[in-house]
């Protein structure tokens, strides 16, 4: 509101007016459900998660080891040649601190997200995941080494969340 006008004529609308049906609206919640076939490459990845392994795929033409794995090399446009586990350690490629949740509310403990170049995969390839066991996010540095913290094997279900988060890790 500007300096000159302190109050506009008329009544202000609130979210409550809409919820209470004072403003005509149409409400509909669609029944939208999917069950995607994981297929050749993703099946190997999610099965690997259950075993506490990150699976990559290899193209012998460009010699890249790709994480996440795919059934085809998008650069050479040919099927990949093999699938194999890579390490569960890596370095931070980029990171952010998310103070806002999906519904735009403030988060008390900000979420630390990072793209992690995974050791054993080709340069610039890896996993987008959360960071944990970091008391002050200002400790996060580009190129910092991190390692996956896995859920106990009996709790893993073949999901990216079978890794709880990546934590700082000192190489010995």
């Amino acid at each position, binding site marked *: 509101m500007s300096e000159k006008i302190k109050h506009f004529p008329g009544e202000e609308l609130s979210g409550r007016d809409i919820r209470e049906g004072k403003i005509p609206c*149409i409400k*509909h919640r*669609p*029944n*939208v*459900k*999917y*069950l*995607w*076939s*994981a*297929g*050749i*490459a*993703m099946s190997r990845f999610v099965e690997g998660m259950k075993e506490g392994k990150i699976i990559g795929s290899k193209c012998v033409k460009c010699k890249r080891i790709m994480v996440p794995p*795919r*059934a*085809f090399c*998008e*650069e*050479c*446009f040919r*099927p990949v040649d093999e699938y194999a586990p890579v390490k569960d350690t890596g370095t931070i490629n980029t990171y952010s601190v998310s103070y806002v949740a999906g519904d735009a509310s403030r988060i008390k403990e900000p979420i630390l997200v990072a793209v992690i170049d995974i050791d054993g995969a080709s340069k610039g390839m890896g996993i987008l995941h959360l960071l944990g066991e970091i008391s002050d996010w200002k400790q996060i540095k580009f190129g910092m080494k991190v390692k996956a913290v896995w859920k106990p094997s009996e709790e893993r279900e073949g999901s990216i969340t079978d890794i709880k988060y990546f934590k700082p890790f000192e190489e010995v």
Partner: protein
Amino acid sequence: MTDVAIVGVGCTGFKSVSPEVSYKELMFEAATRAYQDAGNINPRKDIDAFISVAEDYWEGFSIFDEFVPDQLGAVLRQLFTVSGDSIIGLGNAHMLIKTGHFDVVAVESHGKPSDILTLYDIVSFAMDPVFNRPLGGHPFYLAGLEMNRFLFETGNTKEDCAMVAVKNRDNALRNPYAAYGARIDLNDVFCSSPHFYPLNKFDISQPADGGIVIVLASDEVASDLNDCPIWIRGVGWASETPSLESRCFGEAVYAQLSAEMAYKEAKITSPSREIDFAEVDDLFSYKELQHMEAMRLCEVGEAGRLIAEGVTGIDGDLPINTSGGNLGMGWALEASGMQRLLEVVIQLRGDAGERQLADVEVGLAQSWRGIPTATGGTAVLSNC
């Protein structure tokens, strides 16, 4: 002005389910086959632009276009998605090449309805939320409404429609890409359960998974890529109103308008004489007859007589849906129209095997976007 030809086609084939592959892997197979067919081109450098035909709710992704480049060889290249039908995608590729800025363009479409647990709820979600959705029920009753009015206005009969289902399921037995080939008779159609009067179960196409990619090229390079380029003589598309309360239920106006647009470009004045064979949308049996009449492949009220006399059979004077149509190949969402186009290319090349038609030069492919839309496309192709 530049002429445009189809120089490559690739198809995965269609099946009721495909749990062994992801949608990306399905698309990769179709693309690999199409590029091989188009003189073994390398998409990383030989294709100037890519078009995918897809709809977010079918895929289960917001902004699905962004998930497309890798499996088509289109990373770091020119790509966009047409949210419509594959023949509308073809129209866009046709125009890109006619600008003179693009020589080779790929068009992709696929359907993987087996990935959708609530397929018909998504169809309902395409209906108006104020006037239609609250009434509930299965959205395919719209096809019942349309069929009833179409039969009333034209004098075609339920028996004529059942003959479409029998013919197309039978044709599909000769098509290795088809999911639903079967030898059925009229009695099987009549005895199949009533679904949406006057539609019985066997009048309705069933969902199928599969993908198709085609490669188009300008006349400057077409002959280098394929010994038998199939020329696009005309493409058209049109939409009627979404309002179910005011659209035309008896006639397929979108098919009429899209066909007239294609005929104008192709300089066709008498389609029933100038077109040798056609693939027309038959998501529901009556649609084949309604679309034939809308596109002037016969007179209004005459389509039923033509199928009864065998004119639209493989051995007839105007074969319709030698591929098996959607009733025989399956309802593959946005790839349904591309199935029609694929068969026209295969027939014009002379590659249709035991269902090959003799001496065909001009073929028509027509698509409809399905319930609850009133949108469709038409393409006229020739091999000379």
